[in-house]
């Protein structure tokens, strides 16, 4: 051991999972170091931009009063899009205004920095701008990390190093990501001004909108588009499953341009100025792609542990990251009390996860990724919606067609009921 000091715990990665873990342990008096490869915590992070607040609420009650949140989401939009059309759905209600645990749009470089600062205030030693090159393993037990050419030792290392957790891969806890299990998200932050956003989306004050799109933005590929309103900007982007890239002749960056040029989107971003362009992987494989979570002296949390659920109309990762980080921290506190950091002792982390909403969600939706692999949802549904609405709202002096006839015509044009029946059956089985 080259360093004088041995930490109780070293957290790799200063994102939401890492900071939640570090904060939890520091509050219990543990000696914690958190190592972040970016110049500051949050500087490598990007996500669509919606945080469901419930799990952070447990860690920092009423966090929204002090955290750099953008807006509280009170308006939900969903669009099925074809190249020229969109069938949209908008929901606003006092039910969304008065949720006990609202969701918020956030910008991660600001938000993650704030949470890391909270951890630092609680006593965490924050080491920013250092990449952990490898884990130090002795007799099969993780005993520390190598960074900046120096070794730092700890009783436990928590890997919260994100979706590209090369460290978990290095020691064999995690396999390389597979194309069908991950999507790439590409995003622009577009400045518009607060008043323009309020006017275009029909919002006031701190209220915000979340808008998901399926169909055209990705050329019918698995995935979709999103827009979240920030205070004075929009987070706009697409998410597309990697195995689908090349299925249609549209490159990933062009999907963003295609979305921005769509007649249903273009008016909302008119006059906007680009502030930042980012990209990030999103795990979509669910339960079956989760890595080993515990070994002697090491735990894995957040994106590194593939704790993301894609429900089609929303993708949740941040609230799972925060909860898993907190639980990893709790597990280390318990292990410290026993002075036993073996896999067996640390496996209380798995028990805590099982009892939490995380594993309930991951299990409930374990078959959903397979269902969402069906192109009917991303390609045929938007097309059918467009045909249906196009026929319903067409008045051209010709003979009007009654609603049921239109529905049947659209169905017949798109493979009939058999396709839908198959999909319904799969959906039933997936639940």
């Amino acid at each position, binding site marked *: 051991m080259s360093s004088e000091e041995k930490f109780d715990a070293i957290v790799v990665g200063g994102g939401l999972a890492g900071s939640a873990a570090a904060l939890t342990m520091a509050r219990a008096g543990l000696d914690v170091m958190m190592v972040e*490869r*970016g*110049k500051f915590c*949050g*500087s*490598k*992070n*990007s*996500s669509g931009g919606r945080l469901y607040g419930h799990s952070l609420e447990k860690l920092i009650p009423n966090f929204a009063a002090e955290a750099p949140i953008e807006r509280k989401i009170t308006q939900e939009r969903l669009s099925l899009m074809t190249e020229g059309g969109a069938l949209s759905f908008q929901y606003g209600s006092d039910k969304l205004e008065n949720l006990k645990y609202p969701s918020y749009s956030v*910008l*991660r*470089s*600001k*938000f*993650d920095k704030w949470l890391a600062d909270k951890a630092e205030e609680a006593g965490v030693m924050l080491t*920013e*701008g*250092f*990449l952990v090159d490898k884990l130090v393993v002795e007799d099969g037990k993780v005993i520390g990390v190598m*960074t*900046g050419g120096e070794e730092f030792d700890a009783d436990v290392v928590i890997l919260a190093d994100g*979706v*590209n957790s*090369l460290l978990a891969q290095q020691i064999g806890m995690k396999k*390389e*990501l*597979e*194309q069908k299990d*991950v999507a*790439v998200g*590409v995003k*622009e*932050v*577009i400045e518009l001004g607060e008043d323009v956003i309020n006017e275009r989306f029909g919002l006031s004050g701190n209220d915000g909108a979340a808008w998901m799109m399926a169909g055209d933005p990705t050329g019918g590929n698995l995935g979709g588009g999103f827009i979240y309103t920030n205070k004075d*900007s929009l987070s706009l982007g697409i998410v597309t499953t*990697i195995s689908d*890239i*090349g299925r249609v002749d*549209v*490159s*990933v*960056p062009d999907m963003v*341009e295609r979305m*921005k*040029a769509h007649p249903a989107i*273009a008016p909302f*971003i*008119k*006059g*906007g100025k*680009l*502030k*930042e*362009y*980012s*990209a*990030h*992987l999103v795990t979509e494989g669910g339960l079956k792609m989760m890595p080993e979570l515990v070994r002697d002296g090491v735990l894995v949390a957040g994106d590194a542990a593939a704790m993301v659920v894609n429900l089609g109309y929303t993708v949740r990762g941040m609230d799972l990251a925060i909860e898993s980080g907190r639980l990893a921290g709790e597990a280390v506190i318990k292990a410290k009390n026993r002075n036993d950091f073996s896999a067996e002792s640390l496996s209380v982390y798995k028990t805590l996860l099982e009892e939490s909403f995380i594993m309930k969600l991951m299990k409930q939706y374990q078959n959903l990724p397979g269902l969402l692999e069906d192109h009917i949802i991303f390609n045929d549904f938007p097309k059918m919606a467009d045909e249906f609405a196009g026929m319903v709202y067409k008045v051209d002096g010709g003979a009007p067609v009654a609603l049921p006839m239109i529905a049947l015509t659209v169905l017949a044009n798109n493979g009939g009921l058999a396709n839908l029946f198959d999909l319904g059956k799969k959906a039933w089985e997936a639940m």
Partner: protein
Amino acid sequence: MAKMSVDDKLGFDKFVTDEHESHIQINEDYHDEAEIKRLVMACPANLYHYDDGKLVFSHEGCLECGTCRVISGGKGVKSWKHPKGAMGVEFHQG
């Protein structure tokens, strides 16, 4: 908003580029055209090109997403690491 090139978009990002070493190494002898086409299409920063039958890459402007590593399964992309600490892309919005 007017159509923008990827290069123009990257101009709005902050980078601290490692001038000495690329964190991504490609296999220049890789010639599976169908797979190379997918790799070229996949990169959000448009850093992969297929010129005169050769795969070409520059790490300057890399958004560090990992898509190229996953899509090439160890073939077109030989090795993929994170850039050194405090180097590479630096998001201020995120």
